């Protein structure tokens, strides 16, 4: 079974993020880049599917500038078989729909039985690309999955999505798309052997012209990025626990009236 995993390279949350001279973009100097954490759950799940079935191919796909190749290498080091890097200035400033159009075009070329991705990328936090890819392809999809099991004959997958108050299980015919939620698995760390081996694996670079998309432009535009307005300094209470508790409850009631 061929499984495609859509991943995104994002700034590590621990690094500071500043707005650049162009107020629509962040300043990328000094940023540490990582594979978006939810995408790691997707990669891990794809590797487990391949291991369980004893055969198959895990192909990891990203859309991004030159540096995004590093994110693909990380996935190859975890065990993915090959990578596809869509790298073209024409796609700079892509919104979720443009990204979904590009990725759907790659999927159409590759014809996998299953596509996995994370529930959202932790940079723009849109959480839309997976569902939009499925819509463009006319596929069923299930978001925020906590478990999945592919039928032995490879015809369908039973997957459970997290919803308010429970888990909803569905049978989806293949091909389909699933987005991974934390809790589905524990992503593995790349081994030294994996890291060395990753260097030899294929990463194919694709340009806009290779995808036959014609003219594409983002539908949503960033007007500006702004630093968060600072929160007014808080009140720190110390001393006798009883006094603190009494004072807090009084202030919540009388001063700011939230309880």
């Amino acid at each position, binding site marked *: 079974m061929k499984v495609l995993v859509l991943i995104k390279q994002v700034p590590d949350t621990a690094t500071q993020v500043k707005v650049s001279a162009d107020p629509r973009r962040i300043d990328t100097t000094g940023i540490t880049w990582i594979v978006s954490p939810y995408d790691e759950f997707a990669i891990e799940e794809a590797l487990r599917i391949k291991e369980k079935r004893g055969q198959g191919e895990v192909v990891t796909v990203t859309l991004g500038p030159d540096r995004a190749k590093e994110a693909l290498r990380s996935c190859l080091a975890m065990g993915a078989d090959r990578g596809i890097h869509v790298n073209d200035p024409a796609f700079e400033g892509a919104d979720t729909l443009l990204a979904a159009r590009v990725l759907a075009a790659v999927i159409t070329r590759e014809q996998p039985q299953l596509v996995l991705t994370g529930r959202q990328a932790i940079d723009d936090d849109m959480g839309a690309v997976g569902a939009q890819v499925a819509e463009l392809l006319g*596929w069923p999809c299930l978001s925020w999955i906590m478990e999945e099991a592919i039928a032995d004959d490879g015809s369908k997958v039973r997957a459970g999505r997290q*919803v308010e108050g429970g*888990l909803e299980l569905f049978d989806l015919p293949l091909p389909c798309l699933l987005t991974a939620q934390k809790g589905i698995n524990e992503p593995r760390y790349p081994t030294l052997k994996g890291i060395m081996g990753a260097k030899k694996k294929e990463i194919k670079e694709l340009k806009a012209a290779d995808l036959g998309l014609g003219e594409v432009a983002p539908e949503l535009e960033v007007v500006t990025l702004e630093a968060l307005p600072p929160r007014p300094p*808080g009140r720190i209470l110390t001393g006798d626990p009883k006094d603190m508790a009494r004072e807090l409850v009084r202030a919540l009631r009388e001063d700011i009236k939230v309880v």
Partner: protein
Amino acid sequence: MAGAFWCLVEDDRQGRPKKVTAEVLGEAGRRAKELGAGVEAVWLTDQAAEDGLRQLAAWGAARVWLWEDAALAPYRGEVWAPVVAELAGKEAPRAIWGAVTSRQREFVARLAARLGVGLAADCVGFGLTDGQLVATRPVYAGKLLSKVRWKRTPWLATLRPNVFRVAEADESRTPAVERPALSVPQGGSTFVERREEAQTGLPELTEAEIVVSGGRGLKGPENFVLLEELAQVLGAAVGASRAAVDAGWRPHRFQVGQTGRTISPKLYIGCGISGAIQHLAGMRTSKVICAVNKDPEAPIFKIADFGLVGDLFEVVPLLREEFKKLKEKG
């Protein structure tokens, strides 16, 4: 009316709209008024209660587009999206808004792809510039705010729960209900079963007005009972840090933060939580933040409105007593 603001109804699966729907209708009402536009509700469900429809009218929906059919529950994107997209093609709404709930965040994304328009997910504010809507949304773990606008209508967006003021209810309004024909596509996914979570008797984390959250400082799963007792008094939900979840003290669905739930309650009380950036990403839009931590240097104190420096095992039971006294006084 052409160019209306459409609000997608999130219901309780018993045929009644939830409070988030009143928030979406409330904000849509305010923005639509500035543009001289109307507000309408769009509801796909397997059952719509009569008082549920009246509720939507009371919250300001001049018209309710209703599809009521067993095939619509539970939500399936490939079934819902074509239904609403087709009507949107005829009616040309100016905006289509949902809430950040498990179904609507996916549904609105699919709808945007089907209509070929932009999507702004998880919005926390809106403004108008030259008759154009501009949305504000947190990005990069909530460290920055991004202002975005659409190239064309309908303006598709999801709204973060608990952020927007609910519509004022006017019970004298009656609903105008339209029931367009429904055609359900064949094939696709089939529903198997729903596994209910163990009932806690406490509100849902993402909808709760008050959240009491615990971290590694709680030392073990058994001590979460302290937070549950406090939550009981306050009618609050109980959340947890990733450290507490990864230690197996709480199920994943209770995790607050970047790789957990995003919440925006009126009051957040973090106990024994250090306040790592990934945790803040999930709760920093809470209106009032309180923290109990024995380390005066804990980063959570930097964003807390009230910081209690102390041992949570002493402070939390005392807080519970104080809140209880308050409730008893009424």
